[in-house]
């Protein structure tokens, strides 16, 4: 009996996370990490940040493009993927800590509007 079928939000996040783990094991194998920063279920946009060794290793551009291209195909709810290594915004570093278990608290009220369960 699956009980989590009712919880669309977590299910989607889990599927995004599983998708990354399943299709991009290279990220972890190469000492990098991929953290889901935000999922907007209404617009279908997801933000992912590659961290660790991914910041500046030469294969992250391809990895980013592949994630963008494949995730929208494989997860129908996802319309747009924002993915970067955190280096885009300026300055230096880009080594933001990202933990696999990190979840941004669902502060957005809109998320609780209770999507009608599709039957």
């Amino acid at each position, binding site marked *: 009996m699956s009980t989590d079928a009712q919880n669309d939000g977590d299910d989607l996040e889990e599927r995004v996370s599983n998708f990354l783990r399943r299709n991009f094991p290279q990220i972890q194998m190469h000492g990098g990490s991929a953290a889901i920063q935000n999922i907007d279920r209404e617009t279908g946009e997801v933000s992912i940040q590659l961290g660790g060794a991914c910041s500046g290793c*030469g294969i992250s*551009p*391809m990895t980013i493009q592949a994630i963008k291209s494949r995730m929208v195909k494989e997860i129908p709810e996802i319309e747009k993927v924002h993915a970067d290594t955190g*280096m885009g*915004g*300026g300055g230096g570093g880009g080594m933001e800590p990202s933990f696999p278990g990190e979840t941004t608290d669902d502060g957005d009220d809109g998320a609780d509007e209770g999507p009608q369960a599709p039957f």
Partner: protein
Amino acid sequence: MAEFDPEKFEDKYANYFTELQRAYKNAFERMNERYDSELIHAIDQQVLNESEPFYEGDGEFRIDLPENPGDRVTGIIVDDEKLDETLDIYVDELEAELRSVFGFEE
């Protein structure tokens, strides 16, 4: 050497992801050895993350870059001329790497 199939390249990120990664990484490393590392990193992270390779036929590849690549490079000081020049060389390297990875070049 993997047999290259242009049709499979249509779905390149599923079929040829490893090869593409290798080509990008090789080009990155070669550029990093020869040119300003900071600039190469910036191009890699800020321009090439929106690039897309296409197969043109006859063993030739083309790299599509985002519009106004120069405007995307932030956080480092570089004049436009040097940026454009380095980017051109980088793209040439990438195309050569793709030819090599897919067996069109020794």
